[in-house]
């Protein structure tokens, strides 16, 4: 562990992260949340800033494979962690099956909740490749959407799960 982090009283904190498979070192004011570091220090603005109090799910990212709210995670506590954000989903011009399914089924309208929903859904499908509709709803019950009415989101995730199973790859 970086001993400088044992007691951080300097104006800048410094950590190493693996973001979407790439190792990055980042310096930031120690009060910043993971959300603020992703958006402001690393220019990864795909992750959205919603309620900032843990009441909406817009800022959800995967930390070591688990869906968490980046607005309530101190960046200081992420030293050495692996972070996945929406920017890491597509491979070049090719959409991730989740993104393609959201496009096909109208799973995204205004789009503000979509990055958080996508990452939460990826966290689910990485662990459970064949979830029931009920299980999908339950896993996404921490993501608010004010446009779709949710049915299209559930349809999209179920369809993406099918595609991923057919291709035999992990989400």
């Amino acid at each position, binding site marked *: *562990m970086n001993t400088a982090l044992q007691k951080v009283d300097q104006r800048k904190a410094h950590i190493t992260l693996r973001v979407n498979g790439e190792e990055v070192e980042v310096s930031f004011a120690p009060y910043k949340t993971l959300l603020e570091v992703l958006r402001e220090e690393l220019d990864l603005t795909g992750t959205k800033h919603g309620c900032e109090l*843990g009441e909406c799910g817009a800022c959800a990212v995967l930390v070591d494979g688990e869906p*968490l*709210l980046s607005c309530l995670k101190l960046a200081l506590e992420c030293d050495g962690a692996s972070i996945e954000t929406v920017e890491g989903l597509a491979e070049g011009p090719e959409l991730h099956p989740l993104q393609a399914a959201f496009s096909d089924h109208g799973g995204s309208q205004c789009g503000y909740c979509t990055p958080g929903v996508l990452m939460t859904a990826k966290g689910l499908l990485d662990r459970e490749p064949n979830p029931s509709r*009920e299980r999908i709803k339950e*896993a996404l*019950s*921490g993501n608010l959407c004010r446009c779709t009415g949710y049915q299209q989101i559930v349809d999209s995730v179920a369809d993406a799960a099918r595609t991923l199973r057919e291709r035999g790859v992990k989400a």
Partner: protein
Amino acid sequence: MMRLPWFQYQRPASVAEAARMLAAEGPRGMLIAGGTDLLPNMKRRQQTPATLISLSRVEGLKKITNGSGLTLGAGLTLTEVVGTGAVREKYRGLWQAAAQVASPHLRNMGTLGGNLCLDTRCNYYNQNEEWREAIGYCMKKEGKTCWVATASKRCLAVSSTDTAPALIALDAKVRLVSAAGERELALASLYNNDGINYITRKPDEILTEVVLPQLDGWSSTYWKLRRRGSFDFPLLGVAAAARMAPDGSVLEARVVLGAVSSQPLPLAKASEFLVGKKLNDEVIAEAGVLAASRAKPMDNTDLDVYWRKEVVPSFVGYALREIRGDDMRAMRMRISRQAL
């Protein structure tokens, strides 16, 4: 946007080291575990510790020990508690309570110890700094008046933990460790009926473990009222645990209400009333009336306050019918929108 204020950050590796740091910081220091309660409060400047002592790297806080009962490390996330087979099989009330806390993401972050130490909540307190300044603040932070009941001498903020009522019904104890030593106390004694001094944990103590007794022959359950099937804090929690004789009469019972007071509320009278009786519909209805007489919901959370009091007997009824062995799955789906 609301940013966190500046703070010093310390990351101890052991409970002993954390306890030393906490003692050295005094009232300026606060522990941070999952952060899901503390960080929103810090963003709104309700809590403003100068130093955060992180429990994220402390060894041993995630231990699960199966002995004569079950000991759960306070640092287990609520998701980890829900995923523990022994909790699901033997302490169902705790399992149901933990599974209904907040949302999946928050359960992935928030800890069992954090849910037990959860700050009390109130519509006049859980607001941003500008909002609170505009009403001259309130008694709980920086002000003098309790806006819920302006004649009140004490703060009426609401105990909003789901796991505490469930664990009190299961007769749990907690272990508190400080630099000066450690103690174990009944979880019910961890709380005061005061929205400000709601917890008897001393500022230099760390809640490290939850100790559940072996409960052969007991059944337990937890029912939660909230507006939505996710996110919301309880507007009423009913935890019940009972041990029954083979003929179906109650040998021992504990019923505890959550979110209708500044502390989880053990219902001694309603619990004693059940002993020696079979849980028929009349007995359950009577226990519900006894429970409602103790519930004092205030108009400082969501939904209509009179209605929240009126539904207490119904929720006590759901809990006792589930204990009796009724199939409550359809009702559970209607109320909580989760299969539990």
